């Protein structure tokens, strides 16, 4: 049988899914064990026990200096910044996308502008943000906003253009004016697409968040990682990276479920 025609069976599929993860873990822990056997003070590949101890110290023991539970404080600060950044970007991106995609008179000036703006590397203008907005929360949120808004706006503009012209004409024959046509036809059709676009830019949003926190912050997941790097505290960095990965994955899952629950018509409409 040709390889292209062979499918994993029901029992084999979960095994195949788990296999690469198991291999990665195995490679790590055997490496870690080997290095620690050579030198018990090795910091590069900490053992599971060392990482659990680090998590316990940061997440379940109050900090000696401030009395905070640093792990949760970092998580809260990062999620607040991320949520605000993504929220603002979603609203602005949706507005710009609809304006550029469904109103030709606004599309003419906006569309090329968005294309150019999306080419500006956001990290290159981070210093400008710090100068303009200071070192507070605003600059970090703005980096996320500026980083992902043009991408969202361009994607939604494209999706708005893909709405069949027949539907727009039909709505006009049903008595819609420009505003109600956008409100009742364009906007509801773009919302599920917005959620899908958000899933795609989630990775960039995290990237900008960590970058901003690494440079100027007093808390946050990115701040902690870059702080403990000075002591080569891999036993803290690795659990933090895993935690960020888990959070990002949960957000992706949440957005996917939300698309399914809030817009049940969407799957059928694509066919």
């Amino acid at each position, binding site marked *: 049988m040709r390889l292209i025609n062979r499918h994993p069976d029901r029992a084999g599929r979960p095994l195949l899914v788990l296999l690469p993860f198991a291999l990665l873990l195995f490679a790590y822990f055997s490496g870690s064990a080997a290095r620690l056997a050579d030198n018990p003070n090795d910091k590069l590949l900490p053992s599971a026990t060392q990482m659990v101890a680090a998590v316990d110290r940061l997440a379940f023991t109050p900090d000696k200096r401030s009395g905070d539970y640093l792990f949760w404080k970092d998580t809260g600060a990062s999620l607040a910044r991320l949520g605000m950044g993504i929220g603002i970007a979603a609203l602005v991106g949706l507005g710009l996308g609809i304006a550029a995609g469904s109103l030709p008179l606004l599309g003419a000036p906006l569309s090329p502008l968005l294309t150019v703006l999306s080419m500006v590397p956001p990290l290159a203008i981070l210093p400008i943000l710090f100068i303009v907005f200071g070192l507070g929360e605003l600059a970090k949120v703005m980096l996320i906003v500026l980083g992902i808004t043009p991408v969202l706006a361009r994607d939604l503009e494209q999706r708005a253009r893909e709405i069949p012209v*027949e539907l727009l*004409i039909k709505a006009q*024959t049903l*008595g*819609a*004016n420009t505003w109600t046509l956008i409100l009742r036809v364009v906007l509801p059709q773009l919302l599920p697409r917005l959620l899908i676009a958000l899933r795609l830019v989630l990775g960039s949003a995290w990237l900008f968040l960590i970058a901003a926190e690494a440079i100027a912050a007093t808390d946050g997941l990115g701040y902690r990682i870059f702080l403990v790097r000075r002591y080569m505290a891999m036993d803290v960095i690795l659990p933090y990276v895993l935690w960020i990965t888990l959070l990002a994955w949960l957000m992706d899952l949440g957005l996917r479920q939300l698309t399914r629950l809030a817009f*049940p018509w969407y799957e*059928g409409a694509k066919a």
Partner: protein
Amino acid sequence: MSFISVKNIWQEYGDQVVLERLNLNIREGEFCTLVGASGCGKSTFLRLLLGQERPSRGEILLDGQPLAGEPDASRGIVFQRYSVFPHLSVLDNVALGLELPRTPLLGRLFGSAKREAREQAAETLKRVGLGHALDKYATQLSGGMQQRLAIAQALVMKPRVLLLDEPFGALDPGIRKDMHALLLELWRETNLTVFMVTHDLSEGFSLGTRLLVFDKVRVDPHAPNAYGARVTYDIPLNSDRRAARAAVDALPAHIGAGLQSAL
């Protein structure tokens, strides 16, 4: 006095002439079927009637007034595809037409007004045979049912002109026959003026009271786009239905209205 008069219409895209010197007079209540080879301009003519495009030269008068230059509620349309809103239920697809004209700010009704609109929409949907599927999403319907829905959407607006662009082209023959019966029934009940583009000649002959054949009169083999199409045949059909409609029109209005549904 004719309801729609088409006066010396030309439609050109660059140096491609699609329609030339088109003149027509249509009485109210006429069922015009438009046939012709692909690319002969019958769909272009329909877009002109809809207001989706404006003619390069000439004008179209509706009731003596120049036709509005953009689609509006006076002319209903059913396309071959993409006529229904995928994000709305069958009921809301029709109720939308009752909500939009009355709410220029929010585009939706609330409370009792909303309930009334939905009841009226349900009424219309029952007439086209969709009373059982009110709560389904439009995309869950079969192709034929979607076209019924698109017709219901147009009807609820009570337009004076109904434009159909190959509405049954994608349906299989059995369904198509049901749709013909439905369309004729609705046409008899209302005083609609219908324009229907079709590729199916027999459909054109059996449904219409007037068959318009679009074709090029002049052809230059070296410049196939140099000349446009005109109406080469204009055939009155189904004289019994024409006569019945004319008889009703001749009656005083209060009697005629009562008879309309009986026909």
